[in-house]
């Protein structure tokens, strides 16, 4: 059984069928790629997995436990973190405060104690150091550049130590140096046991990073395999070049 198992998921927005019996599995410890032309349903699938959209039919399982149509906060607490295609950070909070939002606590007493507890503070500083934002920790997040916001979002998802992280176009709109740095960070975390599911249009990035790639087209998975297999699959070529 895979760590994350999506089976026959369908979702329609009015008359538009965004997902049609789409299936996907993410093995524990892997870096899995999810590619497909624009509008093929990748982000909708992410929204379905993370609870942002209710799916119409199908099942989603995480660690052999059903997470079909549960709330986003519940999904996150189970250990699935995600970033957004259009980076979503908290603009009026400082970088450090942003880091602490995702640091989990249970119970009233814990919630009412200071947000900057020493243990979490240490962890937040380590992660900011990891993505290179330490100097900006007291800056309102709105003041960061686009690339820095992406790094911040990545870092604050990490603070909760999720088992799997869903990255929605992490390399979109950032410079090549930063893309390489990001790939390196993903590999480092993967070695520490974090599983990744990555949506990306930058083929060089995806092919270089992922062991397994699933290709989506018109709301369904049409192919999967290693980067080489996917690249030579006629159905994939048709999806990208055909019509």
């Amino acid at each position, binding site marked *: 059984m895979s760590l994350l198992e999506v089976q026959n998921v369908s979702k329609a927005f009015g008359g538009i069928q965004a997902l049609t019996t789409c299936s996907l599995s993410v093995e524990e410890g892997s870096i899995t790629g999810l590619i497909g032309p624009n509008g093929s349903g990748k982000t909708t699938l992410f929204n379905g997995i*993370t*609870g*942002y959209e209710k799916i119409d039919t199908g099942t989603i399982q995480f660690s052999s436990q059903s997470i079909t149509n549960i*709330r*986003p*906060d519940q*999904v*996150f*607490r189970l250990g699935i973190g*995600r970033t*957004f295609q259009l980076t*979503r*950070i*908290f*603009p*009026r*909070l*400082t970088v450090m*405060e942003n880091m*602490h*939002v*995702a*640091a*989990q*606590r249970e119970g009233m007493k*814990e*919630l*009412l*104690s*200071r*947000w900057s507890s020493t243990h979490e503070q240490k962890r937040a500083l380590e992660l900011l150091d990891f993505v*290179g*934002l330490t*100097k*900006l920790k*007291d*800056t*309102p997040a*709105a*003041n*960061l*550049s686009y*690339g*820095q916001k992406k790094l911040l979002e990545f870092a*604050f*998802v990490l603070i*909760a130590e999720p088992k799997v992280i869903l990255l929605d176009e992490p390399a979109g709109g950032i*410079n090549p*140096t*930063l893309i390489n740095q990001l790939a390196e960070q993903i590999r480092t975390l993967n070695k520490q046991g974090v599983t990744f599911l990555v949506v990306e249009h930058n083929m060089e990035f995806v092919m270089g990073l992922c062991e397994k790639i699933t290709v989506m087209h018109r709301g369904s998975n049409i192919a999967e395999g290693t980067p080489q297999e996917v690249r030579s699959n006629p159905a994939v070529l048709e999806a990208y070049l055909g019509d």
Partner: protein
Amino acid sequence: MKVFRIVFPLVLLAAFIAFPFVFTDPATTTVAVFTLFFAAAGVGWNIFSGYTGYIALGHAVYFGIGAYAMALLCQDWNIQPGYAPFFLLPLVGLIAAAFSVFFGWIALRTRRHTFVVITIATFFIMQLMAYNLRAITNGSAGISLPIPFDWTADFFNIPFYFVALAILVLAFIASWWIHNSKYGLGLLAIRDDEDRALGLGVNTGPFKLIAFVISAFFVGMVGGLHAYFNSSIFPPFAFDALFDVAIALMAFLGGLGTLYGPILGALILVPAQQYLTVQAGSSGYNLIMYGVIFLVIILLLPEGILPTISKRWNRWRASRNRAEATPDIVTSPGAENSVAVESSGKGVEQ
């Protein structure tokens, strides 16, 4: 700066305590009592609306429920005038809070503009109920509260002043505590991007409702105290639309979501309003002037006084630092919604 954060509220508290001993004129202390009423209610309101960004324009509901709870408890339990009614205030606050669980639960199913409209609607519903549930509220004839006749005119304001101050201090401590807590950080995250906060494990529904109930508790206590101060209540004064607007305006003026903003707003607006009322008489010109002054302030200081000052201060400090040395990145820490990032030298990305 850290010392300042502890010393400043204590100095402010000392000034508040000393005030009625320095200015003993009842006309002055009456203005001071009203200022504290609004400051306490404003700080309470700010715990919900300031931190979560949900602008509630119906907190007069809890002010009114507090007022009627106070009147009815005094009536039913035959409370004697004097200090006794003050001890009912925590219970009065709890009654207002209990109502807010229900109204908040409904209103918080919506967001943004819809939420504002629903809170205004709850206000009108409750005002109508106060007029029409005559068996409980005595309708437009109102209810009288015990009057402490043995308090002299010179002394009368003093107990109210200090009880109002006590509520303000309690509300301030709650606001300060929440602001520094994980819970408060969750509220601020909701203000910035609620769905994102939910996706990071913040249990947004209960977070918002609890803040709503806490704010109603403080506003309810102020309502109860205000009723006792006035010795009588009537539907249009217990459920007053101007109150809804006034506490929001004070928080906006001082700085929405800041610790001191609502206090500063009350310190400016309540005396100004009272002064205008005296100057312009009962003609209603005071309301027009009040509105004009407010528009001017909003045009010049759209974020409120405290955030504007803090931003100017940070900008000034940043420019001074830059003159001394050229750091990698000059930013303005602490400023909310800052527009400009001035990067000199290389950015962090490289």
